[in-house]
């Protein structure tokens, strides 16, 4: 909800830049763009018009004016956290310019905005029971 509101989407969870999934009664996942920390920037490589880039401050963002609505980026993304507008153009998490609303309004502080460490991903793999 915070994500929708911060981006001026009104009440529209299908347009949230993060996705919640319950895997088990004791395991809820928040799936969100890692901005290159947990992937190989597949979306940047997949974009044929160079609309997706990683800026100096580390956020991977989409230049919506340049996007040609080809739909290649989300299938390439390992987390599938890119969505498409009604006109087919792509949108994704932009870290709210450095102060993400999801982390700001998470009163349990389950969402943090910080540099990801190797251990974070190892922990997720352990919880999911995949890989090492």
């Amino acid at each position, binding site marked *: 909800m915070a994500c929708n509101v911060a981006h*001026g989407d009104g*009440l529209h969870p299908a347009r949230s830049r993060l996705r919640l999934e319950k895997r088990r009664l004791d395991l809820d996942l928040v799936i969100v763009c890692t901005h290159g920390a947990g992937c190989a920037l597949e979306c940047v490589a997949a974009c044929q018009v160079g609309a997706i880039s990683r800026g100096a401050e580390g956020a991977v963002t989409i230049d919506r004016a340049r996007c040609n609505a080809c739909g290649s980026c989300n299938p390439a993304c390992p987390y599938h956290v890119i969505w498409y507008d009604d006109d087919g153009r792509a949108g994704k998490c932009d870290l709210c310019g450095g102060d993400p609303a999801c982390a700001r309004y998470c009163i*349990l502080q389950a969402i943090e905005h910080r540099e990801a460490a190797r251990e974070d991903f190892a922990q997720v793999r352990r919880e999911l029971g995949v890989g090492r």
Partner: protein
Amino acid sequence: MRGYGGSILTVDVSTSEHRAEPTGEERARLWLGGAGLGAALLLERVPARADPLGRGNVVVLTPGLANGAPFIAPGKCTFTAKSPLTGTIGDANMGGRIGAMARHAGFDAIVVEGSALSPVAVVVDDDDVSVRQVSELWGKGTRATAEALHAELGWGFAVACIGIAGERMVRYATIDCDDRQAGRSGIGAVMGSKRVKAICVRGTGRVEVADPGALPGLMRDNDRRLREYKSWDNDRRYGTGTFVDMVSKEKGTLPTRNWQLSTFDGADAVSPYAWAARLSTKSKACWGCMKPCGRVLRVPDGPYAGTQVDGVEYETIYSLGSEICNSDPELLARLNELCDVYGMDTISAGVCIGWTMEATERGLLSRFDLGGLDVGFHNPSCAIELLRRIAHREGFGDILAEGVRRAAEEVGLGSEAFAVHVKGQEPPAYDVRGLKTLALGFAVSSRGGDHLKSGAYVVDLLGKFWRFEGVDRLSSEGRGAMCRDLEDLFAAYDCLGVCKFARRLYVSEGLLEPIRVLTGREMTEADVLRVGERVTNLRRLFNVREGLTREDDALPPRVTDEPIADGPSKGNRVSKEELARMLDDYYAARGWDREGVPTRETLERLGIDHLAPLELQMG
């Protein structure tokens, strides 16, 4: 229509056909949404004196107006049907995601009518509605059912389903969504009677609001108020059961041993303060809630190792704890999990078991009657087997599955005297002999034994809430108007879908700004209470139509005839004469006649006189 999904969806599972109609300004104005809209649709769609488990009944899902919107605790949607337990209007709310999903799919109500020949799931994917055969899910528990449907449809769907108890039409079966339950009134049994195993909804649309520019301010304001609210962290850590100790020791109003006692010597052991550190694994929230109180428990070792459950909530600490003299929190977690997976109400199931234990100890039921099971307060773990038999309607479980009123009628032998129920529904965790506002609330509640219609336990236990101060819980003076006001307020929460655990954050002007932002309606506190009053009157009209009278606004013999035997409230009871005075007072405050029927003037004032049964309209 700003703030609304916009349509009412009706799915007839007899024919697999569906239709949508506009919600309309008039319905939104009269009922806001949620429980109010559900009650209005029930009165409209169900013919008088319909069999609750027959084809004529319907199941209505109504999201609250707040579902999916930035309120602090906006998670509650309501299921409404004629109750197979009480024969009254039945409703039950829950924090499952299905409410918000329905709104985003464009629906302010989903009505399921008719009955299918074989098990089906109603699947609503935005405006694509289908009725699917799911015979392979029949016989599965709620968790396995939700898991299978999520695997097939994707996690994006919210799944509300019944377990084995719903299939077998246990009269207090629940509906489960995201491990939260619409628990009371037996609406799961109504779903089972229609052979509807699940309702699955995905909504991807936007809910248009009247003042989108105000949404960020609302978010900030919620966040600020919550951080100033001192008990949120405690709620998160320990859940809803934290005051069990106080209710037992300080007030002496925790029903124990099938209401024979009112303090529980195991209260310390079943209090969340005793077990949370050892058993809790994580915090759990309803959809959109900023003030989570859910806990996931896991029993790590011992006889109940592997038990995992969202809970244990206050009411269950009573019904499967003190009520049956169980002071083992791990057994409690196990019993809670069984009820959730079978899909039945922990309160009703616990009271049925407590009654069985007492009947056995009094020699009214033999070991033979109970299929060799050692039943009694000395052996609370017999509840594991009893719950299984109830859910499967096996042996004596078949009788208990009918609810305590019918079970006592069946057994007879004077067991009716200690069958604790109001209008056939087993009551929650408050001994109303020492909580007199709530005693009236129990007696007049539209769905029978229930604390959430009046919510009067708050004023009685704390002495103050909202506009009331210095309330003496043992006095029955002036309770009519108090009960009326509290019912109206709490009915308004149910229309909005705002959780009553956040009540103190919203009393009551706090509700007005979000309503304005969502719908554009500038309402005053009086306007909001008027909606609640309208809903309470409508529920009454439904029950009058079904043949209920003043006689049904009664309390069980244990409350009227037997004074509390122990603890700080010892010696108190609510005599029939005292209750009669409170009823007169309440009916007068409501503008109802001496028989408890809304007068034509009252209905006209509320603008719902056209909804009254014909004989009332004639005056």
